[in-house]
């Protein structure tokens, strides 16, 4: 499964200008960044559900979302466990032992407040990750590159970025072949300890790798230059790089939602959270 993969389709989200989608991603990151209290879970969930609606509109399979959560599961469990014990909570859910770090929490006690705080952080992580496919799955590199020139990023720089992305699989492939070639000479890096690996084991692999990549880079440069890259003319834009009505509508919507969430956070989050808690059959 790939995280950065353009899937061609013709949906509202696909038609949006990359700048609009990028703005949305940035707003999300800001929101995630400022949501630091347990009660902020409410605005995070609001934002996350809108994101999932956008997924639906963009025809990105929700199955993919589930597998994202699965990948993140390890981190989520880690966060919840650490927070459960470390958070300075009062309601103990269970006790392993008692040890109070000076001026801190009793780290032998798993608290309800810690659990909730851990869940909130997990939702932050999920929210931040969940909006990325809305950009990467629905935006072709070419359109992204060309739109960046509208933000006055020289085409050269966005091209370097894209060519870099393109060479990642090339490097991986070369790495694998070199490792295999050395294994065939009874040199098995997978079987060595870390110390040995770090100090000498990589030489037989990194040396051929670098030399090969230099050669490939040379070929690539020929392919690029013989197709007139860097000719002193205005490049043709192949993709639609302009903002349309739909972009303004989309931006208006996400900005209002953002404002609404911030407003909730500042004035009503605590109250809402308390109401919500009281409705839930929780051991408090």
């Amino acid at each position, binding site marked *: 499964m790939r995280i950065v993969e353009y899937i061609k389709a013709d949906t509202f989200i696909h038609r949006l200008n990359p700048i609009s989608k990028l703005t949305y991603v940035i707003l999300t990151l800001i929101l995630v960044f400022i949501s630091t209290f347990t009660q902020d879970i409410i605005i995070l969930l609001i934002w996350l559900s809108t994101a999932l609606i956008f997924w639906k509109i963009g025809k990105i399979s929700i199955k993919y979302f589930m597998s994202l959560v699965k990948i993140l599961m390890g981190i989520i469990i880690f966060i919840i466990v650490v927070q459960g014990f470390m958070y300075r909570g009062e309601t103990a859910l269970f006790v392993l032992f008692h040890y109070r770090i000076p001026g801190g929490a009793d780290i032998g006690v798993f608290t309800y407040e810690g659990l909730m705080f851990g869940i909130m952080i997990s939702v932050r992580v999920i929210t931040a990750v969940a909006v990325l496919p809305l950009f990467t799955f629905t935006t072709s*590199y*070419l359109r992204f590159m060309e739109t960046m020139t509208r933000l006055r990023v020289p085409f050269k720089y966005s091209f370097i970025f894209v060519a870099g992305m393109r060479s990642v699989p090339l490097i991986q492939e070369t790495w694998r*072949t*070199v490792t295999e070639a050395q294994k065939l000479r009874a040199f098995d890096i997978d079987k060595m300890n870390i110390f040995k690996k770090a100090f000498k084991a990589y030489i037989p692999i990194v040396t051929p790798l670098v030399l090969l990549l230099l050669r490939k880079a040379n*070929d690539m440069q*020929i392919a690029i230059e013989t197709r*007139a890259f860097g000719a002193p003319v205005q490049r043709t834009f192949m993709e639609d790089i302009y903002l349309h009505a739909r972009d303004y509508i989309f931006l208006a919507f996400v900005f209002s939602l953002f404002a609404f969430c911030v407003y909730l956070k500042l004035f009503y989050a605590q109250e809402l959270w308390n109401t919500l808690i009281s409705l839930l059959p929780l051991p408090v």
Partner: protein
Amino acid sequence: MSDVIVSVSNLSFQYEGGAEALKGISFDVKRGELFVVMGPNGAGKTTLCFILSGIIPNMYGGVRKGRVNVLGFDPWDQPIYETAKKVGVLLQDPESQLIMPSVFAELAFGPANLGVPKEEILKRIREALRIVGLEGFEDRHPRELSGGQKQRAALGAVLTMMPELLVLDEPTSQLDPLGTTEVLSAIRRLKDLGITIIMTSHKTEEIAYLADKVLILNDGKIVAYGSPREVLSNVELLENVGVKPPAVSTYFYELRKKGINTFDVPILLEDAVNLARSMIYDGILKANAIKFDETTHSKGEPIIEVKDVTFVYPGEPPVTAIKNINLTIYEGEFVGIIGQNGSGKTTLVKNIVGLLKPTKGKILFKGEDVTKYTVAELSKKIGLILQNPDYQLFTLSCEEEIRFGLKNIGVPEEEMEKRIDEALKFVGLEHLRDRYPFALSFGDRRKLAVAAIVAMNPEVIIMDEPTTAQDYRGRYMLADLAKRMHEKYGRTIIMITHDMDLVAKYAERLIVMWNGEILADGPTRKVFQMYDALEKAFLKPPQITQFAHHLRDEGVTPEVLTVEEMLKALTPAT
């Protein structure tokens, strides 16, 4: 048709601090011609391509003498993007020429750099995709293309620049037979459209059908220049410089040496068949039914047994690379494996040497399951020599390179020196013992890679594509090494290749793979008669075998594998 668009006179070139690559060559190319440059590795073919397309001096420096005129300008005097408007370039390696994440973006890249209007670019992309036969592939990522498709996409990306001259540097040398056919037919369509093409190649038999002019370079000098018929029928000259003549030409050339000279040496299979038929009819030639030695070497013990092996590459979706393969290799055999890329040859071999573990089934080495051993332990028993030596060479001297593997398997110090000496001598590199491997020629680097495996003294040696990027001599040099291992030391050899002449000459047993399965397995002579199986795998027997096959009704034994055998099967009547 007569206007000259490329004119080179007295051109010499010396790389900065390097050897003189071209030594005073002169030739003209007319509009619409397909001009093929041939010659052994190191003859200066690539240098010539680079000069015509402005890559020299824009990317590589050196000293040039003489005069070059390409479409009215000299690529030396202008920036490369100016030359790029008129001259398109395609290199060998399809992988590194695709730089964009989709075929569409790739094809749009060049003309967009030149500021061509969008509507025009879209029109050109449609046209280019039609010519290279990739309609409907616009949104494919390069990763999702086969080697032949990648090379055609790279060609399409050059075509959208609307070049007046195409410079193709060995466009098929890294492709399988199917990919080669695809790319060559795209080139033929371009030729029919009247585009001027300068191409380098090693594939004489295919070139004979395509080229308008052939130029042979050797050591930076022109040794022959003329129509394909003039040049390619000059068997002696081609053999001398290390270019493989068409097999049928060699046959008729040898006939001439026997005193029959009432004909011109043909270069095409069909012409050769017609000529032979009429000569049989006229009583000049006589077909002999010859019996080939059917007795193969007495089979040794089974050394590798592949039992019902399936291998699935995990992923989304999983890819079944080989399906229920059953195969027994006996001690002392010389086995060839042929098939297109993706037919499962390499996967099978990787399972045998332990780089991959069978998803289902098992592989035995002398009765022991190979999964019991680590790859390192197996490397003492089965040696795999990979296509490209540059994936493994890393030390500062040839000696060290061989020592590396020996150290890994724990050969005692005293024996080590002996083995290094022997291995270097075996491949003929003993005089280069202290040289830096990367300073060696490609052919010598390959020899060194062979020595590094041979020194580990495995009982089975597997060669994966010894022919990739190798010229005619290089191919036979490696196969000869394998043959010597086989005959002198009784080693079991498995050779994977796309070169039918090579397996015909060396392998006793031949396996044809297609789509993860074994389509045919038997003595090489028999397998090359299984036209149905070969056709299914998009393969053809060697040209000389096809020649004999066409003449079977005239009484020629069809099971001929080499020119020497053909000379016995169809002899002068007197």
